[in-house]
């Protein structure tokens, strides 16, 4: 759906991670349940939308945005994070640099989004156990320290992928429910990195003057 979506159950999820960590494969595995041995680190689609049936009989639509992972595009990150409800951070267990990069993404996300955004960390390529450079306990400890869910995933072996996205959907649905119960109203509001900036407007500016108050 290209247009406006039902405000109450559509969530924006950004997929973050260094190039070649397997973001695309994860996404394709999840959305289309396909994995190609020959697939290079490219994506078949850079934007994917999937409606998820939740365990509580509810439903949520995840709009997953793939993002440019090259270092030279780092400054563009906020354009993609903006209004995100969740971020799935992916690293390659055979590449410790990609794990460090996840940490820098998280720092940036925290600066921009605060604690509002839901996080999930995926330790990808778990099928390459022999070449592992980042231990599972390091990944789990780090995820716990930032309040993120942790998943050991392998797009190739179809391991942990659906669980990771389902966890994100469930967490977002729970957050939405809490928000609605708290009187925030479902409406058009969902958690996420808002676009609004704080403004302190001078008192006199708020008074309407004739017909041209704006």
């Amino acid at each position, binding site marked *: 759906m290209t*247009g406006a*979506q039902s*405000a109450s159950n559509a969530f924006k999820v950004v997929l973050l991670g260094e190039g070649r960590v397997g973001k695309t494969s994860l996404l394709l595995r999840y959305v289309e349940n396909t994995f190609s041995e020959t697939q290079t680190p490219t994506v*078949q689609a*850079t934007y994917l939308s999937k409606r998820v049936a939740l365990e509580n009989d509810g439903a949520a639509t995840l709009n997953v945005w793939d993002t440019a992972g090259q270092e030279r595009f780092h400054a563009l990150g906020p354009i993609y994070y903006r*209004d995100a409800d969740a971020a799935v951070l992916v690293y390659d267990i055979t590449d410790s640099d990609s794990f460090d990069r996840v940490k820098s993404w998280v720092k940036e996300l925290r600066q921009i989004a605060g604690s509002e955004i839901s996080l999930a960390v995926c330790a990808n390529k778990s099928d390459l156990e022999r070449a592992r450079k980042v231990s599972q306990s390091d990944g789990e400890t780090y995820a716990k320290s930032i309040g993120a869910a942790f998943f050991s995933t392998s797009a190739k072996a179809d391991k942990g992928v659906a669980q990771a996205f389902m966890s994100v959907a469930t967490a977002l649905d729970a957050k939405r429910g809490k928000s609605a119960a708290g009187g925030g*109203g479902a409406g058009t509001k969902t958690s996420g990195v808002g676009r609004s900036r704080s403004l*302190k407007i001078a008192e006199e500016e708020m008074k309407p003057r004739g017909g041209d108050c704006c």
Partner: protein
Amino acid sequence: MTSDDANEDDARRRPSSDVIDELASLFLDEDYANRRRVVDDASTSKDDANTPARRGESSPLMRSSSATTPARRTAPPATVRGWFSELWRSLLAEDDDEWADARRGRGGTPTGARAIENIDLGMEQEMEVVLRKTATPASSERLRRTSSSFGNRRRSSGSGGGGYFFGDDEDEIVRSSSSSSDEEVSSRFVARDLPDVFPGKKVMTVGEGVMDEIAAESQRLWGAPNAFVTADDCRRAVRSLAEAKVVCAAMDERLEAWVVKTRVRDADGEMFDGDDLLEYWRRRAKDMCEVFLKTLVNVGGRLESCSTTPKHRDSLLRVVEGYVTGGVQRKLFKVGIHPKFAREDEFTAIRLEQLASLPIDALGLEVERYAKVVDDEDIIASLSSLGDLSSPSHMATRLVDVSTRIRQAGGDEDDPMNADDLLLVLLALVARAKPERAYSLVRYVETFHALVSNAHKGEEGFALANFSGAVRYARGDACGAIIEKSSTARLEHTQ
């Protein structure tokens, strides 16, 4: 009816300028610093003495009390102006009450006992009453006929009256399967019995079949959110509804009167910079959308279903955004955004010019693979004229089309494009298209797209983010270094 009669009738239906003034003033009373004040006390107006407007008093139109409040603390509205004052007050009082289902089936007009009471008091009011009516063969036939045109209807086995019920994704009409002699049917008095005192809203006879037609009309109007692309689409849709005419007229007045302030000070006396101004303008536009939206929903009629049906709601959100942003876009660009970001636009234009002359491998793109797509004339023309489109949503829709075409031309299932390449190809295309005042355009679309809807989280938002990313990357140091490196290499090659 002669043409004179028609003109007279039309003039009678049109809201008076007083009403418009009042509505416009109500719209002006918004407090944009998130500390909304209640509207000025309308009861002080000498020609609106019966309008209850003391601050803090509960509104007879508030959802919790409408139509059922036994003893009102305030007098009922005497005029349309009064009615709208009350409506406005109730909207302000509701604050976070968004899209509550409580109003479902009650419309925005005073109903039932409340309406009867108002008639007794001699108030100007459209009237809706509940009649005991024997369903006639003709009306049953009509129901069957109208029902057959919709695929998602079913008959209920209940004995209640007619109604229109909505599921999450599909709409369905549920009706009584029996024609009980004492079936309750909502109906309205005919125009002959009551004067047409509700400006802009046609008084009509409504039986069960016609009620069904209203539901069908609602579905026809709002069933396809993506049908609303241009600002004209949005204007046409809402202006076609007689029940929305007064609100549209007020909004038109408001949009026309909206002056884009460029000199605003913060609480410390400092002048707002460009970013702050954008946020300031965005809040105003957003507030206008919210006011317009809530008022339209409360008007009821064919707008009623928009408060409860997901697709209808999305349609109305798009329509409201298109209506408001389409109405202020030119002003915002001309008075606000273009002058404020003139330097940035100049710099961006220079950068795009430089980038356009670079071979695409300098950007990091495979020449063989992407040479054709970066010279796609249709895409270039689409991007070049982006600023001519009528609203941010219109622009976003085009960018979705552009992204789709790029992906199709630049990859296939076996060898698809990735997010990095998509961004770079878009950058090369934007450089070739050179959209006028590209930086202003980016800032405008970023700021004013999806003011009240959720479209920024979907594919439109993704396409906009990529466009924004391409222009911002073009302006950045990384791109500057590429341009410098490339021109140095060219110079050395020449020498």
